[in-house]
């Protein structure tokens, strides 16, 4: 946490460098069929108030009953963050009035969260990695939604989200740049998705961040922080931090002081603005919820969940580099999304992992990204891609033809081997046939042949001509060998 910051992360001010210090509170919607304390559905996109139980609507005399699946999800998350699991925790009421908060309090965990300290290893773009401390993870209820544009004089309330389980994941102030922060959220999102405890869908609000930003001179004590509420995309998190750090630096350099406050990020203007000051902050009057006994479970419960955890990105990355020989960069790209890693592993099974990685990263994800499709909707299945790689490995097709074949399978589907057969895409390995073409082309270009003796790189031009003449089907190695022989290189 107090390791010296790399100079590149510092922000240049008018009279010296500044260091930005960032901590985050991530609100992650728990993947569960029903809400934290009621049996109502958590399905997204229902008609307003279609998923509301008597408890969610805070009818008189209604009582919360904990949804055990949400507890399991929180514990899984804690284990995935290598965190301390608290066998006893307490639900508290956070009291405030708002129309989309029917009981007038949110059930949350204040002093005793279900998950304690943990950590996330974040890989940065420059290949370095930083360990970000996790302060705690607690469970709490989401609020409903007020709709202000439905009626000329009234607001409407939709309680579908009221009571949906959220995990609040609080980081330590271990982040030192907007890039760090973005990488942290990406990594956290990846872990949650691997665990299956949150779908990480930021567009649907399944993952939101409150970002605490302060600045200081390198080595100085922590500055006063501002909290930017409810930022809902990784890109916006970066923009908000950049803007906020600059704003604070400007104030400090002009001799001003930062006021502790809550701010909002306006994505249209790319700026943060004040929402409420410290003085205006709510007094939440926390009290232990008397409707709920303390949440207690035993170590065996935790151990059983631990035993059922999937392989997580860090473990998978280690296996990809150590057992499969992939570069750290490639492994990192492949494990970021569980679906990509699964796809890769299906392609790599029984094949050369490096070639599989190369194709998945460059051809497939490149193509998917251009079309904005997720890998789960890839037109080319792992089996199809594997078949293409097999055809290439056995010498049936050349690398260039493989790329053509990939395009055909992408556009039309079908069995790659059959396509190769039916469309005559097989590589020509008949040295006699290739030699005839080589002879013909060398004979037709005596000046180039002479050049090649001086400058051997000119052989590339001959390779191109031969390949062109063979419709790309000539075995490139055979072409090379025969040309060298013919040109006397």
């Amino acid at each position: 946490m107090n390791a010296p910051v790399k100079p590149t992360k510092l922000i240049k001010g008018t009279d010296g460098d500044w260091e930005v210090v960032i901590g985050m509170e991530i609100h992650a919607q728990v993947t569960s069929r029903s809400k934290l304390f009621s049996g109502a559905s958590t399905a997204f996109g229902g008609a307003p108030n279609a998923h509301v139980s008597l408890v969610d609507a805070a009818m008189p005399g209604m009582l919360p009953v904990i949804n055990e699946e949400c507890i399991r999800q929180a514990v899984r998350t804690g284990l995935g963050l290598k965190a301390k699991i608290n066998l006893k925790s307490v639900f508290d009421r956070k009291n405030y009035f708002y129309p989309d908060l029917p009981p007038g309090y949110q059930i949350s965990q204040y002093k005793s969260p279900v998950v304690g300290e943990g950590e996330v290893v974040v890989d940065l773009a420059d290949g370095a990695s930083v360990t970000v401390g996790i302060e705690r993870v607690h469970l709490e209820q989401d609020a409903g939604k007020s709709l202000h544009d439905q009626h000329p004089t009234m607001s409407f309330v939709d309680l579908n989200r009221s009571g949906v389980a959220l995990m609040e994941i609080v980081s330590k102030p271990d982040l030192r740049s907007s890039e760090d922060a973005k990488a942290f959220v990406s990594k956290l999102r990846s872990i949650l998705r691997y665990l299956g405890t949150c779908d990480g869908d930021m567009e649907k609000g399944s993952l939101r961040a409150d970002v605490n930003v302060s600045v200081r001179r390198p080595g100085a004590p922590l500055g006063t922080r501002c909290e930017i509420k409810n930022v809902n995309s990784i890109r916006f998190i970066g923009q908000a931090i950049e803007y906020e750090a600059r704003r604070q630096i400007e104030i400090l350099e002009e001799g001003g002081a930062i006021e502790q406050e809550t701010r909002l990020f306006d994505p249209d203007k790319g700026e943060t603005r004040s929402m409420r000051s410290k003085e205006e902050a709510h007094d939440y009057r926390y009290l232990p919820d008397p409707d709920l006994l303390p949440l207690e479970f035993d170590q065996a419960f935790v151990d059983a969940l631990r035993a059922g955890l999937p392989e997580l990105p860090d473990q998978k990355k280690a296996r990809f580099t150590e057992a499969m020989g992939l570069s750290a960069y490639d492994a990192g790209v492949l494990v970021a999304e569980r679906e990509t890693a699964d796809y890769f592993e299906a392609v790599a099974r029984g094949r050369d992992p490096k070639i599989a990685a190369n194709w998945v990263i460059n051809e497939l994800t490149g193509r998917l990204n251009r079309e904005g499709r997720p890998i789960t909707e890839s037109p080319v299945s792992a089996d199809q891609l594997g078949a293409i790689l097999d055809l290439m490995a056995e010498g049936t097709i050349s690398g260039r033809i493989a790329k053509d074949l990939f395009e055909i399978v992408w556009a039309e589907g079908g069995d790659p081997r059959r396509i190769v057969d039916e469309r005559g895409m097989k590589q020509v390995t008949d040295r006699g046939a290739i030699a005839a073409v080589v002879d013909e082309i060398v004979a037709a270009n005596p000046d180039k042949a002479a050049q090649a003796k001086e400058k051997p790189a000119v052989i590339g031009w001959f390779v191109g001509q031969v390949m062109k003449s063979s419709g790309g089907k000539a075995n490139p190695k055979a072409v090379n060998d025969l040309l060298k022989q013919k040109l006397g290189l």
Partner: protein
Amino acid sequence: MTDLTSLTIAEARDALKRKTVSASELADAHLRAIARARALNAYVLETPDAARAMAEQSDRRIASGEAGPLEGIPIGVKDLFCTKDVRTTACSHVLYNFVPAYESTVTARLWRDGAVMLGKTNNDEFAMGSSNETSFFGPVISPWRRKGANTPLVPGGSSGGSAAAVAANLCLAATGTDTGGSIRQPAAFTGIVGIKPTYGRCSRWGIVAFASSLDQAGPFTRTVRDGAIILRSMAGHDPRDTTSADRPVPDYEAAIGRPVKGMRIGIPKEYRVEGMAAEIEELWEHGIAWLKGAGAEIVEISLPHTKYALPAYYIVAPAEASSNLARYDGVRYGLREPGRDIVAMYENTRAKGFGKEVRRRVMIGTYVLSAGYYDAYYLRAQKVRTLIKRDFEEVFARGVSAILTPATPTAAFGIGEKGGADPIEMYLNDVFTVTVNMAGLPGLALPAGLSPEGLPLGLQLIGRPFDEETLFALGEVIEQAAGRFAPQPWW
């Protein structure tokens, strides 16, 4: 034949079984009595149609041999229990028009066992009061009067309507809730039996919450046996209330007549409060003598933290109440008083919807939970609560089976007599009862004599957690010795 409304549950059960009376006759007799007793203001909603329909069903089940344990027994329901399709207000303006779409667990169990609903009984608003004077529907008048006087008296509270209804023969039993004494104190004031079971014995699901960690449902009856009969139906585990106890419900009636010989009965010296009326002191001595006479061993005990119970209670209960009552905001149901914006709507709704005592407790609760005050008030009160609980645990660990105390420091007082200027005067009514809620223990109040002015006085038996049976056994001994008490009808 005797008036059907003066039967006990046990007697009515036998008569129904022998078919000398029908459930419909029983219901009609009570509906007539209720109609004649409107001066008491015991019921805030009479449900004659439901009563007759339920009674007819009971008669059919009796005829077909499918009678439940409470088949055909007409009862009153405190207006704090949500009753499906029947207006439930907690006697507050803020819920004046609220009709639940659900039935509380406790009342659902009563109907399951065949009981017949006569109506909803009056109570202090949100169960906050000790005299039933804070109800939006006006005070309940006790069926009791001082000898030779016609000053209207309070029935006690908060379950004053239920207590008055049972005492005045307007039902065979009624439900109540007890947060600091709201069953036992009105039972004592009206000369009947009231039971606050162990916390967690009855489900709180569907009961309008006052202070969740203290609230507990229980019955009012005219005899100890009747209390045992009806509690068995009310009690039991409910997965919808995670604070309800997952343990079997015993046959409480079987405890009636069980010998008490050799039981150690604790007499807490701290309950001999200064200024306690001589008549209360005397009553207590009688109770001790009766139990001793039945073979129980009387031991003096000490519950040293008793004096802190009342102040701690008046922090914990309002704190929880301030949070529990936040939902009455005019947004979804009940009263809504419009305003220029949402905050104004909240303020107008809650200012008009809540009475003075409720507003006072919401404000006290808000204050004690506020930043900077939480540790000094709420946290400290919770520590006191732990100490009070430990006092009892230590006494029980030394072999004490139950504790005998007075139920209230005085007999019933006149309407408007107390608490006008100083709310503490009213709060002191609960001095003998709040400790039991703070410790989560069962308590049974029963009449043991009359004051020189002719008003009933009650004793309280406090038991070990989930040992209501011992209280029924001891209560029966006192009831046999003291006899039963009924007011002279004047209404």
